[in-house]
């Protein structure tokens, strides 16, 4: 996941479409955003995720982008 942190979310979605499910799970509006320009690393802070949710979000995103998925 770390290697994708400085990607824009639209590029990560292209590369790993499965991350959309994670974004949905945390009610993050990225999927419906017109620009999708935010950097992956900024999303949890911008969306004011709690520390607990941020940890869960990182864990699930890491799983979603791991080599054996999508």
């Amino acid at each position, binding site marked *: 996941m*770390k290697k994708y942190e400085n990607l824009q979310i639209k590029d990560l979605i292209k590369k790993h479409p499965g991350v959309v499910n994670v974004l949905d799970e945390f009610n993050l509006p990225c999927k419906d955003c017109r620009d999708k320009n935010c*950097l992956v*690393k*900024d999303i949890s*802070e*911008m969306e*004011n995720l*709690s*520390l607990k949710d*941020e*940890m869960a979000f*990182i864990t699930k995103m890491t799983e979603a982008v791991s080599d054996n998925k999508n």
Partner: protein
Amino acid sequence: MLPYWSPVIPPVGLSTLKNFLQSRGYTIRMVDFNTKMETLTFYYAYFDVLRKYIPPEKRGTFYNMGHEILGTHLMAFQKYKDEKKYFQLVKLLIYNTYYVEVDHVLLTKLHEIVGRFFSQLEEYYLFQLNYEKPGAVGATLYKTTLPLSLYLMKLAKAYNPAVKTMVGGGIFADSHKPGTPNFTAFLEETRSYVDKVIIGDGEELVLKYLEGKFPDDKRLLTHRDLEASEVIPLENRPLPDFSDVSMAKYTHLVATASKGCPFACSFCNEKEFFGNYRKKNPAKTVEEMNILHKQYNRKLFFMTDSLLNPVIDELAAELIKNNLDFYMDTYFRTDEASSDPARTLFWRQGGLYRVRIGCESGSDKMLEIMNKGITVNQIREALPKLAMAGIKTTTYWVMGHPYETEADFQQTLNLVEELKDFIWQAECNAFRYYYNGHNAEPAWTDKRRLLYPEDLNEIMVFKTYTLDIYPGREQAFDRLFRFINHCKRLGIPNPYSGYEGYEADKRWKSLHKNSVPNLEEIRYKGNCDKGKKIILADNIQPRMEDFNF
């Protein structure tokens, strides 16, 4: 960056270090805990509970005063073994600040709030350590960030003893200045988990440390550990990289036009901390401001200079020349120039937005004792000229400085009343004694004593001193409460929240036709007061260029 750091000015030291080390091939991740929701929740939970026990007339600058309690409490929470002593200390901390007795119900509530926050931070930090697997971790220390920073340094070392740990920050120019008992206590306390203590600018020293150029047993690193050829000139120092900071949550950008301080006040340690005074070429400063502006879409800059006076003329001229509508918020000193309306209008035209001035007292006798190098007349002359130009004036005052009589204090109240319409903000503090660095210190040596009983100092780690010199601590706080109530009666604000700032700006606009815009108006580019006509004071001959504003 650990709590608590008010989210106004983004962490510039760490962000600059990040940029510098990245340019040398290191991968740097900065975590800013201050914009996390849990930090704010904790902060307001703690103070909301405490506030209920403090009578309104004693709340003073409630949060500002409370930071001392919170900081010591957070340290004691980590260190206590005897619960009775721990609660006794927290009770005394509150008493020695607000002079009220509190019950065990409050102490238990505060303890629970603090405990919950520690658990949240610990879980998150361990997660981050596991995720990032850093080779080195560091923290910047200020009085309010010290306890939690040390806690997390300890966790990092326990998590992986091979991790390099380092700390730096403004605390070493202030309450933990080298040579003080608190600095010695700091070194002792952190011996097992902080590898390096960095005093002053960290870029070159941290790089040298990461490159393995310092022996393991050398813990203290200062600019004296650098060869002249290793020091980066001021002009070439890196800009901050705020990419890890949630900039939407901060109001200011940051710029620097000079380092160190041209003055050598006996109560200050700037010279030792930052070395000799150096000025940056103003064109370079403005170029850097423009780069940051384009990157982060902000126009209001907090200037990190100790004082902007020596560079303000050139800086304002450069901003005007480049037709840039940036604003500067800065520490300032009343002097002859700031009593000249033509100059203050020129500065305003160049973007001077807010000046933070240490007025301290309305008594010339006290200003002399403090070795301030200013007079009451200078304050009286300068504030109206700055205000007339619309520049927001934040004034700092100190109550209960040694030898301040009731008559001196009354002079301060009178001065504030006389100048009320020219003061955007009046912030005051009760005099606090730090072991070292104060004016006339030798004369005070045999007057200082520990504020808290010796057996509680073990869990505080760092000691708090007071002076047995008139008027003393309790009287100082009494004057602080009276000063604040006086300002309230006069309608002089001391804004803390965004809403209070907005209200203070509304008052300023109603008082001064040249008033700078409020924070929200200039937060994002595109909304500025460029084009607004400056209104000249009656006694100034118009200069055409003033009207180009």
